[in-house]
Structures are given as structure tokens and as C-alpha cells.
């Protein structure tokens, strides 16, 4: 009931909220366009919005050059992130389970953290070549630390009462870890994944700037050096798009995996469980 009554009001509220935003956006674009047209801003340095729109049209529709580069950069960032996350999570789990291991690994993790990962770019390119491998490697290296530190922090949290409860009903170490420590670490882990994914994209793009044959970063630096600023901004906006895709995919996963943090998701999960439960009961009655 409450769902139905809330929905329309939320919709209209959204529309009313959206209109001023749109107006402001259009006004900014119009002012910008006008400034370039009257020569207040030189179009070589900052191109007018219509030129950027034309460049986007060209990249995405008429010449369709962007797609190849787009997917290369996206793949580099995602694969790099997956490698970095796999290493980070396994090291963090090992560190959480084994105190000496944590003690002897953490200094190296800290050294890796205080070194600007980006400084490794030329070396990584010398090691892994000009192709996608070097971009994935850099993405993996710089996404490692936020994931490691968040996972470790999540796993070693103190639970006090809850752990006492687990112990008092005779839970094994394994059960305490899987049913208490891991679930309560998940929100922090996902926060780490979100940071890691953003930094992975940065790693891929920076490696592309340094040396590469394909990717949005290459496209962008090529356009910049040709002083084709409109296309360069179009390429930059494509990176924003990649960033948004990555961020919202992770947000979606976060919502599904850590469903108990959101009221609506928790309700959906318990509804599904209740359905399964009644189905099971029904079958037993037959």
C-alpha cells in the first residue's frame, strides 16, 4: 500500500527537482557558447559546447572510432582491478587469520602505499610492454592498497558481545569467521572496491598517456597534441562515462551483496526467503 502511494509523489517530486537543474545546465552551456562566440574565451583553449557536441557525435556516431578505445580502456581497468583485488583480498584474509603474517607483510604494503604508484609507470611499461598488459599491471598495483587496508580493517574489527554469543552457542572458529567476521567486513570491503576501481581507471589511463597504441587515454593525448580540444574533451567525457559505469556497477553489486544495509533490499531478500520457505512447506504437506 505504502509503496503505491509513495511512487507518484516521488516521481513528480523528481520532475520538479530536475527542471531547475536542467535550466541551470542549459544556461551555463548557453553562456559558455556565447562567451566563445563573442571572443571572451578563445576557442583554441576552451572550445564551445556545440563543438564538443559535434566531436562527440563524430566519435560515437559518424566515425565510430571511440568504441574500440573505450572497450580497451574499460577492459584494462576492470582486469587490473580484478587482479589487484584478488591479491589484496587474499593477502588481507591471510593477514587477518595469521598475526605473524600480518606483522611481516604490512611493512611492504605500507611501502607500496607511500610510493606514488604512478611513479612506477615507465618501469611497468618496460617490464610488460606497450600493450594492454602494462596498463592492467599498473591498474592492479595502484588499486591494491585501498582494497587491502579496507578488507583487513573490516576483518579484524572487534565484535565483543556478538562474538561472545557465537562462542556461547558453540560456533567453531570457521563459523565465527564466515558468519560473523566476513559479513561484517563486507560493507568496508565494498568501500575499498569502489576506491580501488576508480584508482584502477586512473592507472590504466596514466599508463596509456605514457606509452600505448590504443585506449581512450591515447586518443585524448593525441587530440590534445593536435590542439583538437573539442575532441579531446569528448574523449575526457568518455572516461567520465567509463568511471560512472564502473562506479554504478560496483554500487549495484554492493546493494545486492550487502543487501541487509538497505531497508528496501533487506525487505526484498526476506520476501524471497519467505516465498522459498512457504514453497518448501507446501511441498512437505503434499
Amino acid at each position, binding site marked *: 500500500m505504502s509503496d503505491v502511494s509513495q511512487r507518484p509523489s516521488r516521481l513528480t517530486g523528481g520532475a520538479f527537482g530536475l527542471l531547475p*537543474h536542467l535550466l541551470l545546465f542549459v544556461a551555463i552551456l548557453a553562456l559558455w557558447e556565447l562567451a566563445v562566440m563573442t571572443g571572451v574565451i578563445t576557442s583554441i583553449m576552451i572550445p564551445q559546447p556545440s563543438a564538443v557536441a559535434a566531436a562527440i557525435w563524430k566519435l560515437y556516431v559518424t566515425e565510430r572510432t571511440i568504441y574500440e578505445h573505450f572497450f580497451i580502456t574499460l577492459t584494462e581497468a576492470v582486469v587490473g582491478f580484478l587482479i589487484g583485488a584478488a591479491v589484496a583480498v587474499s593477502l588481507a584474509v591471510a593477514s587477518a587469520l595469521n598475526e605473524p603474517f600480518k606483522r611481516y607483510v604490512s611493512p611492504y604494503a605500507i*611501502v607500496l602505499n607511500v*610510493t606514488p604508484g*604512478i611513479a*612506477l609507470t615507465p618501469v611497468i611499461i618496460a617490464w610488460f610492454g606497450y600493450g594492454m598488459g602494462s596498463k592492467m599491471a599498473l591498474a592492479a598495483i595502484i588499486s591494491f592498497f585501498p582494497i587491502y587496508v579496507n578488507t583487513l580493517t573490516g576483518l579484524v574489527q572487534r565484535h565483543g558481545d556478538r562474538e561472545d554469543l557465537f562462542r556461547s552457542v558453540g560456533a567453531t572458529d570457521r563459523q565465527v569467521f564466515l558468519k560473523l567476521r566476513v559479513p561484517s567486513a563486507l560493507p568496508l570491503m565494498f568501500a575499498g572496491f569502489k576506491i580501488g576501481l576508480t584508482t584502477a581507471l586512473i592507472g590504466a*589511463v596514466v599508463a596509456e*598517456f605514457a606509452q600505448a597504441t590504443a585506449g581512450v*587515454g591515447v586518443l*585524448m593525448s593525441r587530440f590534445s597534441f593536435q590542439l583538437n*580540444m573539442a575532441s579531446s574533451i569528448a574523449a575526457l567525457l568518455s572516461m567520465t562515462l567509463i568511471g560512472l559505469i564502473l562506479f554504478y556497477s560496483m554500487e549495484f553489486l554492493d546493494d545486492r551483496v550487502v543487501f541487509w544495509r538497505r531497508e528496501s533490499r533487506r525487505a526484498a531478500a526476506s520476501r524471497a526467503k519467505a516465498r522459498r520457505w512457504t514453497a518448501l512447506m507446501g511441498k512437505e504437506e503434499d
Partner: protein
Amino acid sequence: MAVSDSTLSEGAGGGLSLRQRRILTHAGIFLTLIALWEIGSRAGWLDPLFYPRPSNILRSFWLIYVQNGNVWYHLYATMILVFAGFAAGSILGVGLGALVGFNPLVRRFIKPYVIVLEATPRIAVAPLLIAALGFGAPSKVAIIMLVCFFAPFINTLSGVVNVDEDRLELFRSLGASKWQTLRKLVLPDAVPVIMAGERLALTAALSGALVAEFIQRNEGIGSLILVYTRNLNMASAFACIFTLTILGFLIFRGMEWVDHHVAFWKHEPGLERVGRRRRRKMKEALDE
């Protein structure tokens, strides 16, 4: 009894505390790794052309710091830009963050742009800025500024906005002025968050400088790393990278120190220090 026995026997046996033994183990592991690396390289398992030997890296340190001394110039060039860009970017970030935070209308309209900015890899704007501002210091500082801007901006914004409602209520009911609310309620909670943003910003500044130098390739530690790697002088490249590790560590510690002094009320020792000073002052005032 058993515990004290074992600690006694340990103390008698090694003559070392637990802490000292841990440090020794750390050093042992570190030296073993280095030795393995060196041996692996000498035995031909690791190509020294790509994976420089520890001994060669040490020699490179000597070379670039003492014998040739060329690293100083580049280090200086980089750090000047880092601090200039950091100062400009973080002041801008805190200023705009406060402006937006205190103004609900501006906050509502700026939100979508912040989300878009957050998703964009900000370092990616580097080629654009270089094309717009030309080669040289201005474009580098602009890149660092841009990279530094965001964390202080967001943290100032959230620090100013996330004021505890109950406490705000209390302040209102006691008739606190706007200035009092700002100074006694908003700032004490916001400053630690802002300082956390500044710490992130300074780290990002170093990365921003490196990217700018990778693209411009004229001076600075980033271009030095690039040149050494291109010449396959990997030992010197690693000496530069470890220099940045040390620099990163100093920045980290330096910002921690600044944080403990600026936001002293969040840290036990700082709180005691300031408390002692205030007690002393009050006592002097009373004595008079």
C-alpha cells in the same frame, strides 16, 4: 607463574625484548629477500637489464645523489610545483567547500557536477591543460591544483554539512550566535575531516606532478624516471622511485604531525599538551 617463567627465560636467553626480536626478524626477512634478489640476478634467473640488482640500485643512489648530484635539481623542481599546486588547490577546495556547504541552494545545484567530477579520472585532464596552458610551470601547477582540489572540497563540504542535529539543537536552545555555533560546534567536528582531505590531497599532488612530468618530459623527478627507463638504466630509475617512497613517507608523517597540531583535540597527546598549556596560563593569570 608460567608466563613470568617463560618471559624470564626468554629475557635471560636472548637478552632481547620482544620488540627487539621482532625488529631483528623483520630485518632478517628483508635482507633475505634482498639477498635472494641479488643472487637470482647474478645466477641469471632475473635479467639485470630489466630487474636491476640491489647492489646496482645502491650504486645508483650514490651516483645520482653524490657523484653526479643531478637528482637534487629535479627533486627541487618537482617539490616546488607540488607545494605550490597543493597550496592553491587545497585553499580553493576548502574555500569552495565551505561556500557550498553553508549554502543549501548552491549545494543542491552543484551535486550532479560533483558526481560527474568524482567519476572522471582527474589526472586525465593533464593533456588538456598542457594543450591549453602550454609547456612549463603554469600547466604543471594547474594539473596539481586540479588533482588537489577535490578531496579537501568534498571533505570540507561533508564536514560542514554533517553537523550533529542534537548538538545544534542544544546550541540553538542556549541562544548561541552564528559565529559561536561555527567556532564551537561546526569547526571542531569539521577540521579533522578537512585535515584528512588535505592528507589525501598532498599525496595526490605528488602523483599529479609525476603525470605532468611524464607528459612534458623536461624536468622534475618524473621525467628523470622516464629518461632512465628509456635508456634502460633501470637501477637509476629505481633509485628515483625509492626516493619517491621516502618522500611519500615524509609527506605522510609530516601531514600526520600537522594534523595532530591543528586538530589536536582528536588526539590524546595533543589534548594533554594543550590542556597543560591552558592550565599553566590560567594559573599564571590567577597568581597575578
